[in-house]
C-alpha cells in the first residue's frame, strides 16, 4: 500500500491521481449513504428469499411466500363476483320491465351497462352513444331495428349482418355501382328522397322518379318512404340520416348501398351483461 497522500487544505485523503497539479480528493461517501446502500443489499437478499425473484429455464423461484400478483388479481375478481352475486342473480331472473321498475336493480343494471358499453360499444357508437357517420346514434328516437327494451336486447344478442344465424339481416343494393340503375335515374331518385324528407327538390326529377322509387325502393322503405323495422330499412322522411343528409351523401348511399356490421354479442357477453346493456341504452333517453 502506497503512502497516504493527504490534501493540506481539506484534510482529506487523495486518490493519488494528479493532473497539472490538481489532485483528486478521495472524499468518503457520507455514512448515511453507505448505511442505506448496505441496507438495500440486505433488503434485496431478504426479498429474494421471500418473493419470486430469479428466472429459471421453465419456471422461476417462487419465494417462501409463494406470492403471485396474478393470483391476487384473480382472487380480487372472484371476490368481486361473489359480492355481486346476489344482484347478478336478481338481474338474471328479472324481466326487462321488472328491472325498469326496481330502483336498486335499475341502478345496478345501469352501472354494469355503462361499463359494458364503454368496453364494447363505445368504439363505434361513441362514449355517450352519440353515434357517428355510419354508426347509429343511440340517444335519439330513431331505431332501425326497434327501440323497445326487448328489441334492443335482441339486436345486441344477434348483431347486425353478423355471424349469428339469427342475425338482423338486410342489404341495401348498390344500385349505381352494380349497374341496376343508370346514373341519371340515381340522380332522379336523389331528388325524390330529398323531396319526401320535406326539402325543396326538382319537380320534374320527382315525377320521373316516382315509378323508380315504387319499383326499387318501396319494397323495403315502403311506398311512403317511412321505412320498415323488420328489414332495418330507415325512415327516409325524417331529419336523421345515418349516412348523411346532403344530396351527395344520399347519392353515395344509393350508388354504393352501404350497410354496417354490428358483432353478435351473444356468447361474447353474458346474458346478464346484455340485459344490463339493453337497459342502459334504452335509458340513454331514446328508448320506446
Amino acid at each position, binding site marked *: 500500500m502506497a503512502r497516504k497522500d493527504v490534501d493540506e487544505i481539506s484534510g482529506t485523503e487523495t486518490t493519488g491521481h494528479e493532473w497539472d497539479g490538481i489532485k483528486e480528493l478521495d472524499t468518503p461517501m457520507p455514512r448515511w449513504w453507505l448505511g442505506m446502500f448496505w441496507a438495500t443489499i440486505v433488503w434485496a437478499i431478504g426479498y429474494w428469499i421471500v418473493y419470486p425473484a430469479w428466472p429459471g429455464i421453465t419456471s422461476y423461484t417462487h419465494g417462501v411466500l409463494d406470492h403471485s400478483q396474478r393470483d391476487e388479481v384473480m382472487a380480487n375478481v372472484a371476490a368481486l363476483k361473489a359480492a355481486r352475486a346476489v344482484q347478478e342473480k336478481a338481474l338474471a331472473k328479472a324481466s326487462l320491465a321488472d328491472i325498469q321498475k326496481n330502483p336498486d336493480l335499475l341502478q345496478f343494471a345501469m352501472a354494469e351497462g355503462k361499463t359494458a358499453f364503454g368496453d364494447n360499444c363505445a368504439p363505434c357508437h361513441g362514449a355517450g352513444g352519440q353515434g357517428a357517420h355510419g354508426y347509429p346514434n343511440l340517444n*335519439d328516437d330513431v331505431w332501425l331495428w326497434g327501440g323497445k327494451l326487448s328489441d334492443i336486447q335482441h339486436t345486441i344478442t344477434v348483431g347486425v349482418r353478423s355471424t349469428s344465424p339469427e342475425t338482423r339481416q338486410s342489404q341495401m343494393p348498390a344500385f349505381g355501382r352494380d349497374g341496376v340503375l343508370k346514373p341519371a335515374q340515381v340522380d332522379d331518385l336523389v331528388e325524390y328522397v330529398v323531396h319526401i324528407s320535406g326539402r325543396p327538390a326538382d319537380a320534374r326529377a320527382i315525377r320521373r322518379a316516382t315509378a323508380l322509387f315504387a319499383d326499387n325502393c318501396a319494397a323495403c322503405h315502403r311506398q311512403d318512404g317511412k321505412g320498415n323495422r323488420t328489414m332495418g330499412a330507415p325512415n327516409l322522411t325524417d*331529419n336523421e340520416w345515418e349516412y348523411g343528409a346532403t344530396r351527395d351523401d344520399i347519392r353515395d348511399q344509393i350508388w354504393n348501398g352501404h350497410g354496417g356490421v354490428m358483432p353478435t354479442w351473444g356468447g361474447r357477453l353474458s346474458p346478464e351483461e346484455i340485459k344490463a346493456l339493453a337497459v342502459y341504452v334504452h*335509458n340513454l*333517453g331514446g328508448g320506446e
Partner: protein
Amino acid sequence: MHTVISSDKQPDKPAGMAADGVARSDAVATNSAANRKLYKSRVPIYPKEAEGHYRSMKWAMMAFTLTIYYVTPWLRWNRGASAPNQAVLVDLAHERFYFFFIEIWPQEVYYITGLLILSAVALFLVNALFGRLWCGYSCPQTVWTDLFIWVETKIEGDRNARMRLAAAPWSVGKIAKRVSKHAVWLMFAVATGGAWVFYYNDAPTLLHQLFNGTASLSNYFAVAGLAFTTYTLGGLMREQVCTYMCPWPRIQAAMTDNEALCVTYRRDRGEPRGAHKKGESWDGRGSCIDCNQCVAVCPMGIDIRDGAQLECINCGLCVDACDDVMGKIGQPSRLIAYDTEANILRRQAGKASRYRFMRPRTILYAGILAGVSAIMLLTLTFRHTLDLDVIRDRNPDHVRLTDGAVRNAYTIKLMNRSGQARTLKLGVSGIKARQIRLIGDGEIVSSVPLSVEADKVRTVRILVTVAPADLSTSRSLTFSLADGNEKREVQTVFVPGDAR
C-alpha cells in the same frame, strides 16, 4: 432505571465561579460567531433542566397539548345510527370529516382551507405580539423534544451527568442507560404514531385490531412511520429540525418588528458583564456575572446575550435560569425577560419602557383573523343540510329527435347532509318543456318527491325535451331541491343545437 445522579448539583468543573455561590458553566453557544464555519458538524447540546415560572408553564403546556393529542380520538359524540360516534374522525373510506357537531363533506374542503388561513394569521398575530410563542410552547416539535429530554434527564441525569456519560467508555451501566432511554423514547414514539391512526378509525375498534393483528397494513405502516419520525425528530434531531428544516424561523423575521415581545437579554442593564466577588461594588458594571447558566439550559444551544437570532424559540428557559442566579446574588430578577428591542433603545436613551401592542401590523392581523373567523362562522351557521349538483350531459350535448324537438340530459346528485332519511322535492322550472322525464320514474310535471337516505348522495338522471317551436327561447332552466323551508337552486344551460 431511576438514576438521579447526585452530581447534578455539582458545579461544572473547569470554569470556576462566576460569583459567590454561582458556578460558571462552560457551556458555549453552538452558533457563536467565533466558531462559525461554512460547513459545520453538529455540536451536541446537553440542556440543563431549568426551574421556575416559564419552565412550569412549559410543563403545563406540554401536559395540555399531549392530553389533547392522545385523548381526543377517544371522545365519543352521538350522531345517531347513520354516522360514527367518534367526536373527531377523518373517515377517508366514506369521505367524511367529523368534528363534534360539525360534519364536513369533500365538497366543503374550503372549511379546511379556512382553518389553515386562520392558523397562519393567528401565528402571524401571536408572532407580532409575543414573538415565537408557538415555537417555544406548543409546536409539536418543541413539545416532543421537551418530553424526550425529560426522559433523558430522568434516565441519564442532568447536564453534567449526561456529558460525563457521553464521554465515558462503554460499560454495562452506560449500555443499560442508553438502551433504557431509547426504549422509553420508542415507547412514546409508538404511542404517538398509534394515537395518530385513531383519528382516522374508530379508536376502540382499532386498538383492539392493532393488538390482535387484524388491523389493516396501512395502519401498522402509519404507526411505524410516525413512530420513526417522532423518535428521529424528537429524540435524535431535536434543535436541528428547528434551525435547519423548519421554514418558520426564516419567515418570522419578516413577520416581526422591534416592538414584538421576545426573550431578550437586557444588555442595557447587564453590560459590562464579568465575574463578581462577594462584597464587591456593583457600581460601574452590569448585572451579568457571565455564569453562562442561560446557555447551559438553552435547548437550542444558543447564547441569548448575542441578541435576537433565528435559532431562539422564545421558550423563556434562560429567563428561569437567570432569575435563579439573580436571586442568589441579590440582584433584581429579569435580567433576561420577555421584552422588546425598542425598549432597550428607549432605556438607553433614558426613557421609560413601554409596550405597544396596538401597532398597524397587529391591528391588520387581528382584523384579518376576525374577518376570516366571522366568514367561517357565518357559513357554518347557515350551512345547508341539502344540496344538489347538476351535471349536464356533454357527450352528446344535445339530441335532436325526428320531429325537430331537442332533448338535453342532466345527471343530478341529491345530497342529504342530515342524519335522517328525507324525502326531498326535486323541481324543474324556467323552461317550456314538452316533456321532463326521470329515468326509472316516468314523467315529472313540475316537481317530484325523491327519498334520500341519511347522510348519503342519490344520483338521478333527468331528460328535458323542448318542442321545435320553443327552441329559440329555451336557453336555461333551474333545478331546485327543497325540504320544507330549506331550498337550494341550480341554474343550468339548455343546448337547443342548430335547430333547423
